């Protein structure tokens, strides 16, 4: 287990380094820099700005300062509220630096404000996806070939085929305008979360339903299910105790990609429902040339996806005693 985690960590470090250096190089290769083209500045002011963001340093030094863990920037803290004596700094210490666009805010401030919102949205979406997907998949598998199965499979194919913003617009018309049950946009209460969460989770519910159905059918055709019936167990017990665990194993391994997908989908959903989450900040930063924010979110989400994938792999071993992580 420990060896597995260490190996994961090593690959993770490599991945992160690649992501950081590629995006850092791209960001600094842009002609004119992030502050060009907005307002023509007096040379001295421009120099001031460059100095404030350390853009006057050689690029390797900027990179080292950005990555960390040593703080090379004795000035940094002075305009961000620190006292300038920090020894540690940079991404490795969880410090993404100042935002280029939101003056007087660090990327950490912005992420700190918006991430809980996005995380909550993601959790709601995942809950929708799992509850709908697993129950539809089981129902479909148990009624294989029946009308319910056909209807659920059609719905799942539709859910996979239609992008979430199309589904969102239909649902907004339905539940906000025609049958005014839910608020149209904003954030704060449970009602605000239901619809965005649902729209975000639906695609994954469809995939999960498919996976559950296939998994359950596979398991239900196994010999040990017949053994369980031969023991005299009731069908409900057989399905819940013997079949379900094996049937949802594919779903568990899908949770990693699903998390990445939900993070992606949140970009669109947050924009449609005007939710002030990390996703909308990211899209804004991309169009605003707020490179530090864009990079910070990219790195953060890489860490999140990687970490959650590892958690999913660990969870898998708990469910399936046959998996041995050491010899992966």
């Amino acid at each position, binding site marked *: 287990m420990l060896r597995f985690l260490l190996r994961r960590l090593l*690959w*993770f470090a*490599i*991945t992160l380094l*690649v*992501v950081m250096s*590629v*995006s850092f190089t*791209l*960001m600094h*290769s*842009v*002609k*004119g820099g992030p502050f060009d*083209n*907005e307002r*023509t500045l007096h040379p001295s002011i421009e120099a001031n700005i460059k100095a404030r963001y350390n853009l006057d340093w050689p690029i390797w030094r900027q990179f080292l300062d950005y990555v960390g863990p040593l703080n090379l920037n004795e000035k940094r803290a002075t305009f961000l509220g620190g006292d300038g004596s920090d020894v540690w700094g940079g991404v490795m210490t969880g410090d993404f630096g100042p935002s280029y666009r939101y003056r007087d805010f660090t990327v950490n401030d912005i992420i700190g404000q918006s991430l809980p919102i996005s995380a909550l949205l993601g959790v709601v979406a995942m809950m929708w996806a799992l509850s709908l997907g697993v129950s539809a998949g089981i129902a479909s598998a148990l009624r294989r070939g029946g009308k319910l199965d056909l209807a659920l*499979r059609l719905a799942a*194919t*539709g859910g*996979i*085929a*239609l*992008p979430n*913003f*199309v589904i*969102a*617009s*239909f649902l*907004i*018309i339905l539940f*906000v*305008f*025609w049958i005014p049950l839910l608020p*149209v946009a904003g954030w704060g209460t449970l009602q605000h979360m239901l619809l965005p969460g649902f729209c975000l989770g639906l695609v994954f519910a469809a995939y999960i339903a*498919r996976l559950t159905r*296939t998994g359950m059918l*596979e398991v239900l055709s196994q010999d040990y299910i017949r053994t369980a019936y031969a023991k005299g167990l009731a069908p409900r017990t057989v399905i819940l105790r013997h079949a379900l665990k094996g049937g949802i194993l594919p779903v568990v391994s899908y949770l990693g990609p699903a998390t*990445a997908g939900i*993070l*992606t989908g949140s*970009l*669109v959903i947050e*924009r*449609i429902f005007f939710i002030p989450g990390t996703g909308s900040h*990211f*899209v804004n930063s*991309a*169009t605003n*040339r707020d490179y530090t924010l*864009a*990079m910070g*979110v*990219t790195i953060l*989400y*890489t860490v*999140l*996806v*990687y970490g959650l*994938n590892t958690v999913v792999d660990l969870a898998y071993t708990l469910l399936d005693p046959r998996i041995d992580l050491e010899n992966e």
Partner: protein
Amino acid sequence: MATRQGRDHELSDEEMRRLLKESKGIKGESLWNDAWRRLRKNRASFWSLVFLALFGLTSFLVPLLPLPSPKALTLQIEPAPPDWPWGPERTYEDESYEPGARPSVEKGSFANNGWRHRATLEFTAPAASAEAIVALVEALTNRSAAYEAREVSGEYSHFLTVPLHRDDVPRVDYSPTGVEGTLTAWRVEAEEGDEVHYDLKVATELGTVTRWSVEQRTRRGKLYVSAEKDGATRSYQYEYTLGRNIAGKPRMLTLNGTLLPIDDDSVPRSRRKHDLQTVETRERISEPHTDLEARVRTALGTSDLGAATLAGVQIENGYWDLGALDEGLVHLRGRLFGSWQTGNWLGTDPKGQDLMARILWGSRTSILVALAATLCSLVIGVLYGAFSGLKGGRIDNLMMRVVDILYSVPFIFVVIFLITVVNEYRTELEDVYGIDREVIFFVVIGAIYWLTMARVVRGQVLSLKNSEFIEAARVIGASTSRILLSHIVPNVLSIVIVYLTLTIPAIMLFEAFLSFLGLGIEPPKVSWGTLAVESIEAVNRVHVYWWLVLFPALAMGSTLLALNVLGDGLRDALDPRLRGKD
């Protein structure tokens, strides 16, 4: 029994020949025949294939279809509901020419009539002469005109839009005249409250600048100059490109700048920013671009509308920049259908643009982008995977590790980042290398969607390399090329096709997703993503413009659904091992 067996072992020559002949007659069913038969048996997949073929063909031929213009700007402010071809003729109660009222004449699909070009004429005249002006223009052009008026401090500006058909297209003569000069432009900053506006000033020594324009996105512009040549005043048209320093972020610029002589000092030098960038003009000369303007001026002169003056004529194209092929198709359309076009059968969007035309043009863009990106991912993925699989060993290990690393990166974020960075170089790329945004777009998408393809191809090659039937083929003496062509390629190809049909919808979704976020296809061009943004922005509590949501969703949904169903069907047909597994 023994005797019979003995005879079996010693075949006569004649019998041997007969057997050989018979064995030649035995033909196994090829993989493709078998797959096609299976696919045809799978009704859902088969009809998906038919639908996709028809829809794809329609989308490809969109420039040929007699549709209204997909980008026309009108004076309309509200989306019009579907105007079914079998529905009743539409009538409008309000036909008066009240300033600011609805367009005067809205027969049929007035707004988009003139799929190729339209002209907007601006008059300065008292409010009372509105009807007379409209009557004048309509009589002159023999077309119904849209009308709108704006009042600025007691003075009325009247705007009339008339469709121009193929015959009205201005004929531009691009022959060089030898007239050359420089264009000078600078920005002037003016602060109003918190907002900063920039005025772009243009001056040239070529002659009197009558009109100029610049397209914000491309920084390309047109300059109309009237100058004396050979004793006569003629109009010249120049094209130019502004440097980076002049046109900044589009929303920062107010582009109806003032025209000044080059030595004008009314703007102090201190307030000029990015002073005096010299702009290269690409010399183009034209005959007077259309005689409409002249005809209107003449008509005005002879009419009793003494106080009315023609402030300007603006000609709009019904399309964005089309490629050579599309231009050809549009010309063919003109020959086939003349000026006839369909009505707004599926309604219009908030800008009055025909929804059906936009959906079809949008499908075209989305499908083309998806196909090109898929091709891109296919090439990268197959080459990478095949190389890795064939090489094997350490190289294979390393290459697959790279794929693993890339897999664990949330790619969409990197791509968005990449696209914003690439956008900074867009003008340069377009001007210097002729690479436009769509190309960049599908190269970037293709460059990230090759991972699965590489894995699949590598796995297939690896298992084929060690499979017994390849061994068997080698044992019976088949040549390497024969093994490659008749065993490896078909086996890899089948799985590649299966993944291809699953990649295309994924890329379509991704394109729509990026366009939705404003990072993909940009207006005035249209794709499913931009259609979705428009629809979602138009929907509100008071008016549910259902057609804006429903029809694009139908086009998108049915295409994606068909692709998914076809992909599943192909997988069942081509890869028997996966059959029955959903």
